[in-house]
């Protein structure tokens, strides 16, 4: 399984990476913003994408909108501090499959990843 992590914080990518490793996922690509992710996603072909909202150059929401134009099925989980209902709805409308509000524990992230994969492969 291949997972792409999109977050401008390296610390946050490291935390997510270690959770993915605990889940046995070793093929991980990182991107530091939406633009970076768009340039890598075609070559990497991820099975799951974790994406932050607030990032420089291109934010997560713009990335999702652009990505969903070309790929409607790859599961996307938004991992962000944006917790207001209006924001979550905005993200759902843009095409995210699941949503995790920071701060989170490793257990919460792994639970959300497992749920999303199970749901999308059903």
């Amino acid at each position, binding site marked *: 399984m291949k997972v792409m992590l999109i977050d*401008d914080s390296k610390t946050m990518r490291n935390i997510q990476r270690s959770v993915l490793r605990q889940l046995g996922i070793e093929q991980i690509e990182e991107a530091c913003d939406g633009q970076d992710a768009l340039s890598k996603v075609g070559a990497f072909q991820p099975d799951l994408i974790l994406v932050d909202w607030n990032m420089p150059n291109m934010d997560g929401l713009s990335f999702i909108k652009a990505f969903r134009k070309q790929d409607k099925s790859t599961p996307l989980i938004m991992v962000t501090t944006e917790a207001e209902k*209006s924001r979550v709805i905005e993200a759902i409308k843009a095409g995210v499959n699941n949503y995790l509000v920071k*701060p989170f524990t490793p257990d919460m992230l792994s639970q959300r990843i497992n749920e999303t994969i199970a749901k999308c492969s059903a």
Partner: protein
Amino acid sequence: MDAGYITPFVKSIQNVFSTMLQLPVTVLDPAIKQGNSPSHDVSGIIGMSGDVKGSVILSFKLDAAESIVALFCGERMDPDHADFADAIGELVNMVCGGAKAMFTDKKRVSISCPSVIVGKDHGVCLPSDVPCVLIPCSTDCGEFVIEVAIRENAAANKAAEQAAANA
């Protein structure tokens, strides 16, 4: 500043630190900050815009920042390391994000990408027309403060009222 803007920060800091670091935070009595004197050695700064505008600073003593970053990243890091500032930035990002979600009246607020300053005796200049509330915090890793200098954006609120009236 409306006291209703302080409680979300208190709750958020406790939530972020207990969830991400398993570190309980004791919040002491908030006070109004006088002048632009530096609070501590490492500061993470985030700007807020929209219905509420201003800045929020999370300022740590150096040893506290080192211990907290070590807890967050799982390894001790030199303060000059780029990832050190990144970790502080992510903490202030989570604190502000969590706090703004708790603002009442469905305020529409955006937060900026964080900036981090590392160095003794640095000062952060805030707009003089916004009072800065200083919230001292204490943890087993050391002390830090949250400085909240935000206010409701009168222009934005007026526009919202106008829109409501027109509707």
